[in-house]
């Protein structure tokens, strides 16, 4: 087939074995002539290999007895303990309802199974629920006093905090406030878009853990996208379509990292 236009869509089809055979040669030719697309294709292929490698070991694991027993119709035991983060999340709902985010300072970290990521996300969500709803008292320092806010929050939280510019995503800075985060301090930066939807960026310098995560896509309430690294944590919270929230969060996180390194 000649003269067919290819696009990124064809890269995915080629990787997944869905590109028609008759298009293959023309596609390879197109890829050769487009270094940027070739690099993207190679990168996706490498990520795919890494994914398969990461989960390959599961196939050779012995089948747990309880699964085989289930199939044989015997009453199979189930694993007993409830997930600790489930309980922790329930506690946050109570906190959010009471509006007492400061209480987290006492409760955070009490459960043996609590992880730093749970705590960070819970605190960020609780703060968002309480403060993003406030029209007049949402922030302590308004965006008009940005230089002061930057200096003040940076010194209190203990890292160089440059508020990300989220204007390309349609959000402008409303201002910031200082909050308790466990036994430490966190900065909350509040943003708003033209429709009045609010987004908060929660940053703390205290974290012993590493990781990243997000809420379920179907969540109706505020959803947090967070990153944790040893020495700092960041959570972006809002009630937005997940695609938009992920995009804004990724942008905010990149800028925060750049700001800290500057």
């Amino acid at each position, binding site marked *: 087939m000649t003269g067919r236009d290819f696009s990124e*869509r064809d890269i995915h089809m080629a990787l997944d074995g869905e590109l028609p055979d008759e298009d293959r040669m023309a596609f390879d030719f197109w890829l050769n002539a487009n270094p940027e697309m070739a690099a993207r294709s190679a990168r996706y292929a490498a990520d795919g290999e*890494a994914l398969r490698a*990461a*989960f390959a*070991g*599961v196939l050779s*694991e012995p*089948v747990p007895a309880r699964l085989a027993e289930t199939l044989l119709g015997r009453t199979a035991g189930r694993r007993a303990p409830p997930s600790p983060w489930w309980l922790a999340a329930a506690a946050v709902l109570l906190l959010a309802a009471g509006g007492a985010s400061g209480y987290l300072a006492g409760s955070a970290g009490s459960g043996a199974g609590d992880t*730093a990521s749970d705590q960070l996300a819970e605190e960020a969500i609780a703060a968002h629920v309480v403060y993003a709803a406030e029209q007049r008292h949402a922030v302590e320092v308004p965006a008009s006093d940005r230089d002061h806010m930057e200096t003040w929050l940076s010194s209190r939280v203990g890292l160089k905090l440059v508020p990300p510019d989220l204007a390309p995503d349609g959000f402008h800075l409303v201002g910031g406030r200082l909050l308790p985060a466990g036994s430490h301090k966190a900065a909350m930066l509040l943003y708003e878009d033209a429709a009045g939807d609010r987004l908060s960026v929660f940053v703390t310098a205290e974290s012993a853990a590493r990781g990243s995560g997000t809420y379920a896509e179907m969540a109706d309430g505020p959803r947090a996208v967070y990153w944790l690294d040893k020495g700092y944590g960041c959570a972006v919270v809002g009630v937005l379509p997940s695609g938009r929230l992920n995009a804004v969060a990724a942008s905010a996180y990149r800028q925060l*990292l750049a700001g800290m390194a500057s």
Partner: protein
Amino acid sequence: MDDRKTAILAEIPRLRRYARSLLRDRDSADDLVQDCLERALARLDNWQSGESPRRWLFTIMHHLFIDQMRRRSRRGEAAFLPLDNEEALAAPAEQLSSAASRDIVHALQAIGPERREALVMVAIEGFSYAEAAGILGVPAGTLMSRIARGREELRGLLDDSTRRRAIRIVEK
């Protein structure tokens, strides 16, 4: 054991791998597989002869996974998982020896559940677009867009973790 149960038994390793890529925590993943097997046994009569056991079982698992995500969001639960518990990872720590392997397991968990399902179904489980779309109950175009966005999201997250490591090295 009848033939149908033997066929289901043979699919357990694949079901476990799929569940592990969706939920990561080993026990939660095996709970999902167990739920899937229980539902399959209860509905054995619905399994039409000629239908691939794999597709039938993956469809059941997909519905259970989506139900679980919905229940969580209704309760206001985050789909957070313990991130630094090495025992809970998809593969034992020694199999995830490289930082790159750990990063990709973390990153996969961070992308939206629907994209995660679509990507895993095709990139790890090797289903065709038509099969995966059938199992997930979405049009092929939706599936393709989830795969494309999933790959892009995964790439961005992996770049972020690489950059974080680079920054840490510079700081030292």
